[in-house]
């Protein structure tokens, strides 16, 4: 991590601790866009953290910038920082002027139909993408799909042109299905991404793994504090071995999620992150489910109330583990690669030492 990243991280930690409060998250879930907090994130340069300086960004290495999302996960930040940060990095690198404001990324997963074709200087888009995070709050939707196989394009559109069906994810964050029929995007509002769609999707998946790793640390801290405070049978429930053993398992899952996500960030910084991102999303996603279960069990009925802030983290864990590919999808991808390499190359694949 470079010095600039460290400074940004410290400032962001202070900001979120002070302003990303229980009340703010509750209000966001009730439908209020937390505009003041978004403006503060912008003033700190976070949505543009990985965008080039020429585009007004901080130009942090992408892996460092994504690492900042641990804080967003730990504080249950109800804003599209992950997708804005990535979209600004992609658009900036491709030389398109940055649209500003909160961004949503509509990238087709399995079952979605969005596609593009070129028509002169324009790009013509048709199809749908379901469950686009924060699309109802976005100033601009960044549509990402392929025009020719292996080459992704990025196109900018106003939400009014696209929004079909607004809803909420498990965490109460606004989402929407996005769709269009032969929507023409003029030159200057779209660009080739310079990589395949799979690369973009992998980075979105990695962002969710990092968010999960931050939220896991937070639910571990909440659960250990609660176990030490809550008294039953005349002593803190932390004194019971049954509780201690569960929290030890939660600590293991939190540590594994963090190490897997960090490992993928290191691989991204080193250049080849395909396998490591699959590992991170699969492992962190699995940790999310087990971890949330234990955190709730330890918190008892108290943690099941709307009043307690635990659910701000656990509902996000349940949402993030599904976004941009759940565990089985990324596991299967790794598994197919292993089968293609064959049994005698398994160890070399696992250790990157072919």
């Amino acid at each position, binding site marked *: 991590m470079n010095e600039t990243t460290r400074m940004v991280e410290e400032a962001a930690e202070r900001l979120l601790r002070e302003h990303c409060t229980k009340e703010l998250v509750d209000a966001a879930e009730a439908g209020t866009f937390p505009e003041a907090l978004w403006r503060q994130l912008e003033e700190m340069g976070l949505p543009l953290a990985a965008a080039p300086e020429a585009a007004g960004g901080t130009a942090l290495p992408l892996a460092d910038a994504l690492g900042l999302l*641990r804080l967003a996960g*730990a504080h249950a930040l109800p804003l599209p920082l992950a997708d804005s940060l990535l979209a600004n990095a992609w658009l900036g690198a491709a030389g398109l002027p940055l649209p500003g404001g909160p961004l949503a990324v509509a990238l087709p997963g399995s079952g979605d139909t969005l596609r593009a074709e070129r028509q002169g200087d324009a790009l013509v888009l048709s199809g749908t993408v379901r469950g686009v995070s924060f699309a109802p709050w976005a100033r601009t939707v960044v549509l990402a799909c392929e025009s020719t196989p292996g080459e992704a394009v990025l196109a900018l559109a106003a939400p009014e042109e696209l929004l079909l069906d607004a809803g909420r994810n498990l965490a109460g964050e606004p989402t929407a299905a996005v769709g269009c029929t032969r929507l023409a995007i003029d030159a200057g509002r779209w660009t080739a991404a310079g990589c395949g769609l799979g690369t973009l999707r992998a980075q979105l998946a990695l962002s969710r793994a990092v968010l999960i790793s*931050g939220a896991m*640390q*937070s639910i*571990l*801290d909440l659960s*250990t504090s609660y*176990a*030490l405070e809550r008294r039953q049978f005349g002593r803190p429930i*932390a*004194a019971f*071995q049954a*509780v*201690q*053993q569960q*929290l*030890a*398992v939660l*600590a*293991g899952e*939190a*540590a*594994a999620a*963090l*190490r*897997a996500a*960090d*490992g993928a960030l*290191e691989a991204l910084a080193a250049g080849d992150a395909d*396998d*490591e991102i*699959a*590992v991170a999303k*699969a*492992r962190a996603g*699995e940790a999310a489910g087990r971890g949330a279960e234990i955190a709730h069990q330890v918190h008892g009925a108290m943690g099941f109330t709307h009043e307690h802030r635990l659910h701000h983290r656990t509902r996000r864990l349940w949402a993030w583990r599904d976004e941009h590919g759940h*565990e*089985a999808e*990324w*596991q*299967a*991808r*790794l*598994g*197919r690669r*292993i*089968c*293609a390499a*064959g*049994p*005698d190359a*398994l*160890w070399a*694949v*696992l*250790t990157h*030492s072919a």
Partner: protein
Amino acid sequence: MGQALTFDPVSLPEEAEALRGDVRRFVAETLGNEHRRNSDFGASHDPDFSRALGARGWIGMTWPSRYGGGERSFFERYVVTEELLAAGAPVGAHWIADRQSGPLLLRYGTEEQREFFLPRIVRGECFFSIGMSEPDSGSDLASVRTTATRVDGGWVVNGTKLWSSGAHRNHYMITLVRTEPQGENRHAGLSQLIVDLRDSEGLTVRPIANLAGDAEFNEVVFEDCFVPENRLVGEPGNGWAQVTSELGYERSGPERFLSAFRVFVELVREIGPEPTEHQAAVLGRFAAHMMTLRKMSISVAGMLQSNRNPVVEAALVKELGNNFERELPEIARLVAPASASALFRRTLEDTILHAPSFTIRGGTREILRGMIARGLGLR
């Protein structure tokens, strides 16, 4: 965020990676293409292989050269170890001596002990067993009752040690004994003695068959067994601290998640190049767990390299790793094709039969979770 359990990003340095090819060639040349069982360090005894490894400089790799060691880093040792385990190499004979007895003597042993034992260990000629558990002392190690009474020129030992793997064929056993009666502080008054397993009077080693039919672990009975003065390790009464440091070395290595690895390899062989979606997801899940565990384990090697004492982190890696290696064969049997080969069956069954020991040896799952809970400040 909490600081207690963080695993720093550590990757293996170039000079460590460079050893990988050498180890693979060595294993291929030494063992050929014969079928390999898992490298169970309690079961795979092959003194010839250990001597050949010693000749390559791959035992005592991190130790000072004046004792025959290689002065290599923990990372280089890590690569050699994981390559041997993944290949199913028979590492059992020298394993305990290399992993914990040698490091214990380096830290607490007398100069005479180091000069005598370490070069022999390094050459792959001197094998050690662990003498900690007793019939009434398993997880509660501080309750050991084997006594050593001071006599002219040494100690007289009485009592019984249990589960000492390889004691029927190894050379020495580092034995935890009570040198003072148990008082208020139950961790006080313990000491460690190096017992000669091949040439001691009043010593009986009885192999105990395990459920897989192997006779690997033993009961070791001491009846007025004399141990000379110069075989005391460290200070009398300091045994608890010494044993705890020994267990730190024991817990975080790749052997804590690779015990079932050959099942993974053979499962990939059975499934072939075109897995179903479910089979692919199962194999990918194994991979995601293993690759994450390996990163955590390498991170602990980094802490050892920086002279830190990662007791809780090591316990956490072992706990996660053991659960993974116990789960692997259970899931593998359900996704293997019905036509699976006899080779696959044999590998799977061998692993299933040994799996109960994975979450017991070197600290039970429950004890490890208790240590992690203490690391979290819960107790």
